[in-house]
């Protein structure tokens, strides 16, 4: 994600009132993380299920949170999403960073191909940060309680 796209995503998160970002570090999100870190609102989780559960606790307490993870972590997150966030109807968006077929790591290209199908089955939406309307589109999705949102890097 270049600096312009990162600024768009930061604007989108701010537009939605996201108070805390829960991140399992993903390539391309450095500027977004730094922005939230500067205000003491970025937490790094040790794995994706943990990130989902922290966001659930925050959401229960009335805070808006968002989770960011790499596509390789989607499988790790599913049990917590299904049996905690979805089953208890606790809403927060999950942004999945996707490098797809361009990923320089061949193993991640295989993973991306499979994960793409999983996300499709889960009704994942996609926002383009290369266009000025990206932030507004993100806000619309969050207002509609869209759980999975793909960010193509």
């Amino acid at each position, binding site marked *: 994600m270049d600096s312009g796209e990162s600024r768009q995503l930061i604007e989108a998160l701010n537009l939605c009132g996201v108070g805390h970002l829960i991140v399992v570090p993903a390539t391309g999100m450095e500027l977004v993380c730094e922005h939230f870190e500067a205000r003491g609102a970025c937490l790094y989780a040790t794995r994706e299920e943990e990130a989902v559960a*922290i966001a659930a*606790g925050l959401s*229960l307490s*009335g805070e808006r949170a968002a989770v960011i993870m790499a596509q390789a972590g989607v499988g790790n997150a599913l*049990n917590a999403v299904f*049996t905690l966030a979805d*089953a208890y*109807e606790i809403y927060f968006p999950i942004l999945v960073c996707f490098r797809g077929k361009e990923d320089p790591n061949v193993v991640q290209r295989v993973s991306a191909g499979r994960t793409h199908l999983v996300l499709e089955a889960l009704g994942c939406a996609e926002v383009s940060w290369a266009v000025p309307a990206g932030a507004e589109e993100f806000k619309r999705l969050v207002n509609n309680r869209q759980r999975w949102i793909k960010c193509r890097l």
Partner: protein
Amino acid sequence: MLPRIEALRLIADRLGERSCVVSPLGYITRDLFSLTSGARERCFYCMGSMGSVVPVALGIPLGRPHLHVFAIEGDGSLLMNLGALVTLRRYCRGRVSLLVFDNRCYESTGGQPSQPEGFKLQDICSASGLRTHVATEAGHVEEFFRMRETAPEPAAVLVVKVAVAPPSARADEPPDVIAARFSKWLRGASPEG
């Protein structure tokens, strides 16, 4: 060793205007549910997502820092997500008291052993930099609660050695009802108590 239900009763009796509890799936939540009919709004009963109690409990005081959160985990669930101890130490604000019910087995799936011979769960918690105590009788649990009233650390651990025992009936409420009631209470809980 303490009977599980007795240890849970000590926690249920401790729930006040400024405290709440998060419990893990399995027999612990079933027993806690049977003991907390008068305090449902302060209880988040997890019926899935094994290993998620500590991170859920961590998230609550980030939004409501005046609350004291009791996080109850089983030894098997904690082992499923040991990284949560590190994250708890790193980010805990407010007050989280983690009570690990250690029966050394996966009781609800048939009692399969959860730990090797001589393994001490409290050593893992302590090595994570969290102040850790061990309880083998009711007095130890009460002492831990007294200490937590004034302790400066945001997070601390009590490993409670519990005995295997038959569970109470399953919680018979839909999860969305449990979450909505708990969230409503959290949002309304006054910082003044």
